[in-house]
């Protein structure tokens, strides 16, 4: 399955050459997805805006380390994820350490678009999403926002593929359970 970013032709090589118009295109493409990801994890508007800006500046400084131009999306989200982790460590260190998941590899069977939500249920969906523990929410957001592959999500979050599969499985299960309880 192609990710959202993979079907686009993004001017990564031009950005690497220092073309400001190329950077503008890249930033326009990713500013809102990155913001959504950061906000849904840290729940702070200003912190999320700071994370987006720091992500862009870091990306500009270290774009040379990006080996595959097609991976620009997951690379940017990886930077943003690290920034979010830094915020988490300040605020919710205990919560992060407490959570444990079984490391069983569960096959993920449904695509992000399989879950369709009615307009009147949108706010409920957002509330339910925020009830998930941060590691599960992080994986689910990456899956929903950019349709990253499991390997890409593992790369972004810095955990093993099995852990990603497990987290995604339990996140969707929890979401469904909460959804059914609501409706």
């Amino acid at each position: 399955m192609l990710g959202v970013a993979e079907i686009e032709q993004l001017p990564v090589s031009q950005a690497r050459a220092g073309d400001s118009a190329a950077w503008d295109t890249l930033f326009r493409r990713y500013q809102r997805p990155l913001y959504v990801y950061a906000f849904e994890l840290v729940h702070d508007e200003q912190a999320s805006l700071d994370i987006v800006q720091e992500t862009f500046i870091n990306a500009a400084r270290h774009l040379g380390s990006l080996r595959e131009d097609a991976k620009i999306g997951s690379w940017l989200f990886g930077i943003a994820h690290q920034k979010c982790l830094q915020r988490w460590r300040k605020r919710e260190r205990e919560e992060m350490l407490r959570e444990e998941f079984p490391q069983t590899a569960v096959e993920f069977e449904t695509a992000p678009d399989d879950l369709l939500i009615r307009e009147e249920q949108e706010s409920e969906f957002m509330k339910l999403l925020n009830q998930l523990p941060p590691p599960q929410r992080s994986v689910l957001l990456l899956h929903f926002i950019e349709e990253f592959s499991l390997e890409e999500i593992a790369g972004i979050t810095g955990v093993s593929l099995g852990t990603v599969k497990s987290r995604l499985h339990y996140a969707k299960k929890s979401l469904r359970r909460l959804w059914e309880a609501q409706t």
Partner: protein
Amino acid sequence: MKTPREILLEHHRSAHAKLDAVRTNALREIADGHSAKEDTSPNHVATPWMFFRELFLPARGVWKGLAACWAVILVLHFAARDSSPTVAKTLPPPSPGMLQALRPQQELLAELLSGDTKPTNAEQPRRSHPSPRTEIRSPAVIA
């Protein structure tokens, strides 16, 4: 019906203006960074001031040390050169006693150079004879 992605992106539509400002700031910072990098690019190092900065400023302490060593060497060199004539100038004139002691030596030197004096009988060097060879043995010993 909407996908989760659509819901999430639309939910944060209000942040659009702020995100535009963030993007503008980031682009400005990147542009500043690029211009700062260009200032230190090799093309600009060609100017004398940049060359001086590139060469000397990173190892300022080393260059200062070397300069101090050279300064000490130069001072010692000039001091040594200036002192030699002054030493000669400040030497006291020879005393009459010393001149009197030197006079017989000058006379003796003059006699030797003139060649009037007969050579004294010098002891002849001894002619060295070879010692008896040990191979020549007496017949009694052979018998």
